[in-house]
């Protein structure tokens, strides 16, 4: 998924998706799939790893509590009040990752969100925007879930994370990559230095 360069560098011609709207859709889907696959995979991995590690740490005193063990066996019934879809999402997450698996999955989600930034094609604005919104929302909402499972906090964390990440990738990201990388050189031949 290569894009042409829209950085303030020489040969800056912008991403090809600017001329072809259909490509923008492809880029959005591509970016979303990268973020979600990475976050999901890391979340599952860390949740299982942390559950196992916690079982080892408390060997003999606590049973092994793996993610998704609760399944549909029991769901919290909180006086039948309607808490909204976000509330159900938080409940589903907490039910899926019981015990220390919840902490592990949190690490995985946040690590995945941050890691996904390294896959941004910085020349394409639509990819930067998608990465910023999705990864920022995931990291922000999960960070706030560390303090409370309240859906208001969850929503606030989600919005704040997305806003900060979008601001960063849209306004500051490219400023960090304006200068080209230092050319590599072989010490014995000193090949590249002849350019000085």
């Amino acid at each position, binding site marked *: 998924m290569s894009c042409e360069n829209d950085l303030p560098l020489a040969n800056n011609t912008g991403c090809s998706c600017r001329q072809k709207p259909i490509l923008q859709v492809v880029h959005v889907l591509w970016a979303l799939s990268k973020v979600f696959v990475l976050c999901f995979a890391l979340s599952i991995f860390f949740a299982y790893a942390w559950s196992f590690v916690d079982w080892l740490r408390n060997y003999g005193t606590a049973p092994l509590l793996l993610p998704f063990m609760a399944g549909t066996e029991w769901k919290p019934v909180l006086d039948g009040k309607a808490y909204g879809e976000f509330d159900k999402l938080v409940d589903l997450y*907490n039910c899926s990752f019981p*015990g220390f698996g919840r902490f592990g999955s949190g*690490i995985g989600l946040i690590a995945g969100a941050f890691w996904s930034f390294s896959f941004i094609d910085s020349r394409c604005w639509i990819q930067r925007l998608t990465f910023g919104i999705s990864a920022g929302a995931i990291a922000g909402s999960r960070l706030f879930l560390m303090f409370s499972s309240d859906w208001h906090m969850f929503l606030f964390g989600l919005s704040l994370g997305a806003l900060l990440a979008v601001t960063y990738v849209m306004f500051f990201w490219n400023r960090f990559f304006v200068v080209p990388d230092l050319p*590599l050189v072989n010490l014995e031949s000193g090949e590249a*230095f002849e350019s000085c």
Partner: protein
Amino acid sequence: MNKATPTSNVSKETWGPYELRPNPAAIFRLAIGTSCAIATALCVPDAFAILPSSPDFLSWSLRLIGLWLSAAMLWSVSFLAILHLLRIAFGGIRLDAEGIKLWRFAKKIPWTAIVAVSTVERRFFSRLFFIRPAAMQMILHVRRDDGKGVASKQIPSFQFLSEEFTSLLFYVSKLSLGIKPQSASVCIFQSDYRHLLKKPFEESRLKQVAIMCLISFSLVFVLAKRAAVNYTFNMGNKEFNQVNYGKASEFYEMATAVDPAFAPAWDRLARCEYRLGNKNDAVKHWHQALLMKPDYVESKLGLSAFYLANGEIDKAEPLIKQAIRLAPKDEAARLNLAQLKMLRGKIGEAVPLLEGLAKPGSGREQAQCLLAQCYVKLGNLDGANKILEKNPSLLTNSYTKRLCLISMAQLAWAQGRKSDATKFLVQIRRLPGVCPEKELTVRALRGDNELRK
């Protein structure tokens, strides 16, 4: 990464600018390498701290492996995150025809100000943190602005790949001193400044010794602190399990004095105080635990049990709901929820919860007693009778004795055996100590005028 592209038509005056950013692969390697050493160091005090709570060698060794793995995972992930944030904030090393900037907001060092370039291999550091090839440090000796003496600037190699670091060395040496280094280990200097180089070298060495001392002292202090906290906490747990709440609370107080941010110690201290009848301190310390760790389920449950026992249902409800949402499978949380529903008069909703908890062999005697009470209230006297008759251990267990007696009193009352009910109630009131179940059930019976008389 750009490859070397010789362009002989470009003059030295227009060379660059180029940037050498910290390499993600090198940062990852450093995070993984350091995690092994750090996790091992952190596990040394834990090895002693878990001794009181480990019944045999197998448990001790498995717990130690678990602790090592958790420390290694946490360190590598968090250190990686910190390094990446620093990488974003400080940027890379910028070089152009005029000079070099060591980080984003640093002052540019003109090539003409650099009087010597040297590299030092950090073998101990590399061995300690499993860095291959060995880490190096490039030292730039820069003439001071006032012309008096030379200052040194360090560039560590562990944030770059080997070929990136040697390339940097090559460019710096060539652009500042006009010499092409033939290997990564060099010491190049202008002969005029030879006499001035001794002092910065010594200063650099002293600085390293000071940093090593600081790190060692901090490490020993942190590790000793951890060992003290974990050891006293585990000793407290041992006493707690043997129902020596007074002695246990002393250990927990020590643990909280050493590390005031250790939420489990605050929680356990509150539990001891509650069982000893010191309710005000218990509530204060449960709140303290929640202040240190807002999503700590145990403290939410302890505090909610206190409020339930006091009949402050409105205060207990949000805590129980939060605990349930954080740990939906937690049996204590579900038990508290069932108690809450019973107090709210929603017996029908409490029964399925309690039936799930009171399965044979589950070891949840409290749930069995509460289920018997629910059955009495629903008129299912046979069901209640079965539970209480089939579980004689309920009366021998000191923790569930009160609850069992009150269930039996309620059953006897419902069956018309008023003298038996009164007998059970008298037994309950003679029991020593404070516990939520006793207060809860006595409160439940208060609604019965005849029994109260």
